[in-house]
C-alpha cells in the first residue's frame, strides 16, 4: 500500500508539472475537436495526431497522446448523440438512446451524463490500474484463442438484444454483418475472399466506411425525404434543459456503477474485450430494467451504462501495455510506436526501469478525465446549439465532413464511394425497419470470432472439445495418481473460462426461447406488426 501511494505521488508530481498539465489539456481538447468530426474514430484521431507529439519529451508525448485518446473517445460520443453517426464500435450503442434523447430535445442531458459517467469510470479505472494492474495482467494472459471465441459468441448474443424491433430482423442483420466482415483476406492463407479483385477491398471493409454509410448518409437521405424534414426542424424547437435533472442523475447512478464494473474487467482483455464492453453494459441495463421497451427511445440509462463501460475499458486497456509491454489494440499499438520513436523499448521492465513514465501516465489518465469534464460540460451548450442550425445548411456540412473523415482513415478514395453505396443500402434498410446497429456489431465481432475460432482449431488440430474439456482436464490427468487435492484454484479457473462463457451464452438463448418466460421475452423483443 505504502509503495502504491508513493508511486502515485511520483506519478502526480510528474503529471501535475505545468508543462505536462498543459499538454494533457491540449491533447484532450484537440482530441475532442478532431474526434467530434463524423467518421473519425479514436484510432484515426490518434494516428493523425501522433506525429505532433514527436517533438516532445517522452513523458510529455505519452501524456498528450493519452489526452488525445480520451478526447477522441468523448468527441465520438458527441457525434453519435447529436447526429447519430458513430465513429467506432463503442459509440454505436451510445447512438441508440443518445440520439433518441437528442430527438426529444434532451441532447444536453445525454451529453452531460456521458461526460459524468465517463469521469466516474475514469476515476475508478485509474485506481484499479494503480492497485491491481500487475495481478490483472494474468487475466490477459489466460485468455487464449478458445476463450476469445467463446467471448465473441456471447457478444453476438448481446447484439440481438440491441434491437428494439423484430428479433428475426435483428438476427438477419447480424448475419449480414458477419458476411460483410468476411470480405478481405483469409487470415490463415492470405487468399482473397469476396474482394472481386478490387485492391482496396483486400483488407476488408472499414468500420468507419460502413458506419458512415449506414448511419450518417442513410439518415440524411431519410431526413431529406418528404415530411421528415419538418420533423427534423421540430427537434430544434424542443430543446429543453442542458443539464441532467436530479431524477436523471438518480436513474443513471446505478447504471454508471454497473457499466464501470463491466468495462473495467472487459477492457483488460487484449484484442476485442473493450469492443464488447459498451454493449454488454447496454444489454445488462436493458435486461434488468423494469421498462425495457423504453430502451432505444431515449432511456438515459442506455447512455450512462455504455458510456461508462466504454471509458472504463479504454482506461484498463492500458494495463497489458503498462505491465506486459504488449499493445492490446490498435490505439495502444500507436502508443508503443510513440514510445519506440522516443527510444523507449516497450516490455515488462518499463514499469521498473521508467517508473516516472508509467506512473506519470497513470496519474495523467485521471487528470485527463478531469479535464474532459471541465472542457465538455461548458461545451454541451455549444454542441446543442449546433442542432439549431437549419437542416438545409447542416446536411451538406455533415456529408462533407463524413467524406473527409472516411477519406482520411486510409487516404483511399474508394472508401468514400463505398460509404455512398452503404448509404443507399442503409436507406433501404431503414425503410423496411431493419436496424443497422446489430449489423455493425456483427461486422466488428465477425473477424474476431472467425480468427479465434480458426486459431483455436489450428492449435487443437481440429479437436472441437478444446472449448469444453480443458476445464476438467487437470483433474482428469491427476485422477490415476489421486493427487487432485494438489490442484490450485488457478489450475481449474484457467481452463474453465471458455466453458463458462459458452454456458452463459446458452443460458441467454434458453431464456429467450423457453415458452414459460415468453411473456417476458416479448417485452424485450417487440415483434412489430
Amino acid at each position, binding site marked *: 500500500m505504502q509503495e502504491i501511494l508513493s508511486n502515485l505521488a511520483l506519478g502526480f508530481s510528474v503529471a501535475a508539472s505545468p508543462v505536462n498539465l498543459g499538454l494533457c489539456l491540449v491533447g484532450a481538447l484537440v482530441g475532442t475537436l478532431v474526434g467530434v468530426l463524423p467518421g473519425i474514430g479514436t484510432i484515426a484521431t490518434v*494516428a493523425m495526431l*501522433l*506525429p505532433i507529439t*514527436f517533438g516532445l519529451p517522452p513523458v510529455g508525448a505519452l501524456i498528450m497522446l493519452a489526452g488525445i485518446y480520451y478526447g477522441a473517445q468523448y468527441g465520438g460520443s458527441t457525434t453519435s448523440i447529436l447526429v447519430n453517426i458513430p465513429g467506432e464500435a463503442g459509440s454505436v450503442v451510445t447512438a441508440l438512446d443518445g440520439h433518441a434523447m437528442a430527438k426529444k430535445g434532451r441532447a444536453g442531458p445525454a451529453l452531460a451524463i456521458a461526460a459524468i459517467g465517463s469521469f466516474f469510470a475514469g476515476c475508478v479505472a485509474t485506481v484499479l490500474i494503480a492497485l491491481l494492474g500487475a495481478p490483472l495482467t494474468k487475466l*490477459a*494472459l*489466460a*485468455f*487464449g*484463442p478458445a476463450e476469445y471465441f467463446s467471448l465473441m459468441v456471447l457478444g453476438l448474443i448481446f447484439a440481438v438484444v440491441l434491437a428494439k424491433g423484430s428479433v428475426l430482423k435483428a438476427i438477419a442483420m447480424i448475419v449480414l454483418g458477419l458476411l460483410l466482415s468476411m470480405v478481405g*483476406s*483469409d*487470415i*490463415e*492463407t*492470405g*487468399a*482473397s475472399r469476396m474482394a472481386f479483385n478490387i*485492391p*482496396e477491398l*483486400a*483488407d476488408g471493409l472499414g468500420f468507419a466506411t460502413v458506419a458512415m454509410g449506414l448511419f450518417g448518409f442513410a439518415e440524411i437521405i431519410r431526413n431529406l425525404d418528404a415530411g421528415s424534414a419538418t420533423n427534423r426542424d421540430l427537434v430544434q424547437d424542443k430543446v429543453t434543459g442542458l443539464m441532467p435533472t436530479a431524477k436523471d442523475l438518480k436513474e443513471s447512478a446505478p447504471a454508471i456503477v454497473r457499466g464501470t464494473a463491466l468495462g473495467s474487467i472487459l477492457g483488460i482483455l*487484449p*484484442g476485442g474485450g473493450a469492443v464488447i464492453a459498451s454493449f454488454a453494459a447496454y444489454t445488462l441495463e436493458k435486461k434488468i430494467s423494469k421498462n425495457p421497451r423504453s430502451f432505444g427511445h431515449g432511456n438515459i440509462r442506455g447512455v450512462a451504462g455504455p458510456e461508462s463501460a466504454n471509458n472504463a475499458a479504454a482506461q484498463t486497456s492500458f494495463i*497489458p501495455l503498462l505491465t*506486459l*509491454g*504488449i*499493445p*492490446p489494440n*490498435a490505439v*495502444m*499499438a*500507436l*502508443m*508503443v*510506436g*510513440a514510445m*519506440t*520513436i522516443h*527510444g523507449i*523499448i*516497450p*516490455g*515488462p*521492465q*518499463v514499469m521498473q526501469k521508467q517508473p516516472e513514465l508509467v506512473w506519470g501516465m497513470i496519474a495523467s489518465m485521471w487528470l485527463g478525465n478531469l479535464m474532459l469534464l471541465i472542457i465538455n460540460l461548458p461545451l454541451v451548450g455549444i454542441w446543442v446549439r449546433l442542432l439549431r442550425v437549419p437542416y438545409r445548411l447542416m446536411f451538406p456540412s455533415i456529408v462533407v465532413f463524413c467524406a473527409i473523415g472516411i477519406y482520411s482513415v*486510409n*487516404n*483511399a478514395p474508394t472508401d468514400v464511394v463505398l460509404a455512398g453505396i452503404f448509404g443507399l443500402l442503409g436507406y433501404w434498410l431503414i425503410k423496411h425497419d431493419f436496424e443497422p446497429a446489430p449489423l455493425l456489431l456483427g461486422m466488428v465481432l465477425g473477424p474476431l470470432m472467425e*480468427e479465434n475460432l*480458426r*486459431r483455436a482449431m*489450428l*492449435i487443437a*488440430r481440429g479437436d472441437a472439445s478444446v472449448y469444453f474439456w480443458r476445464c476438467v482436464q487437470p483433474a482428469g490427468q491427476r485422477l490415476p495418481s489421486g493427487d487432485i487435492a494438489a490442484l490450485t484454484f488457478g489450475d481449474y479457473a484457467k481452463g474453465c473460462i471458455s466453458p463458462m462463457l459458452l454456458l452463459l451464452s446458452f443460458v441467454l438463448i434458453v431464456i429467450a426461447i423457453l415458452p414459460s418466460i415468453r411473456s417476458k421475452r416479448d417485452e424485450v423483443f417487440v415483434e412489430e406488426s
Partner: protein
Amino acid sequence: MTILKNFAAAVLVGGAALAGATVAQAQDYPTRQITMIVPFAAGGPTDVVARLVGEQMSKTLGQPIIIENVVGAGGTTGATRAARAANDGYTIIMGHMGTHAASQALYPKLAYDPRSDFEPIALINGAAIVVLAKKDFPPKNLKEFVEYVKKNESSVNQAHAGVGAVSYITCGLLNGVIGINPVGVPFQGTGPAMNALVGGQVDYMCDQITNVVGQVKAGTIKAYAIATPERNASLPDVPTTTEAGLPGYQTTAWNALFAPKGTPPALVAKLNAAAAKALDDEKVIARMKDLGNDIPKPEMRTPAALGNLVKDEVDKWKKFLKPVG
C-alpha cells in the same frame, strides 16, 4: 499537312522544353515538399525509421519531407501507389523486405515488380531477426530446438503476425532451412502474437529484434539465436545462428528508399546523398542502435547496391515461400 507539321514541331518544341525543365529541375531540386510514402501504420518499425531518417534528409535538402502512411494488404497498397506516382522526385517510398522482395514470391498477380517499377535510392537499415520460443519450451539452445521441432513437427505451433508479415516471411525461411512444415497460427499483428507467446498458447516465433528485446530481457520468452553474422549489442548474450549451429539461416528485416521508375538519375543521386548523410548523423546512429538496428556500411548505401539486394532477395524468397491464393 501543315497541321501535321505544326503538330510535329509543337511536339519537338514541347519535348525540348521538357528536357530543359528536367535539367533545371535537377539543379534546383527540391523546390517544394517531398512526400515519403510509408506503406505501414504510424508508429510501426518502418514508420519510426522513416521519420527518423526523413527528418535529417529534409535538413540536407532544404525542403520538408512529409510522411504519408498508406496502409493495407501487407504494405502492397502503398507500394502500388508509389509505383504509379509521378516520377518527378517529389514522391518516394520507404519500402521493406516484404513490399520490395517477398511480395513477389507471395502474390504472383501483384500490380508492380520491385525490380523494374522502382528506381532504388538507398538501403537505410537492417533489423536483426531473432528466433524465439515460449519460456517453458523444452529445447535449451538452437541445436536442441532444431532436433525438437523436427521430431515433433506435427505438434508444434509457430505464431506469425499474418501472411506477408516479417514474422511470417522470416520464419518461413527458418522452417525451410530446417526442412519442416509446421502449423502456422496467424495473429493480427505482432502484439497479439507476442501476447500468445508470452501466454504460452503457441510454441515459437521469429521477429525483429526491436519488438522482442524488452520481453527477452524480462525473461517472459526465450531467444535461441539471432540470424545475423554478428551478435547484437541489444541482446549480447544471444548467439548468432552460425555460432549456434544453423549457419544457413541468415536474414534481416531491411528498410530502403525507392522512387517511381523513370525518376531522373540526377534527382535519385541527390536523394541518395541526403539519405547517406542522414545515416552518418550522430542522433540517427544513436537512435538506430537503441532500436537494435544495423546501419549499412557506405558501400551498401548506393542505388546500385540496393538494386542488387532487391534482385537477390526476390530470388531468395521465391525459393522458400509459396504463393498465396
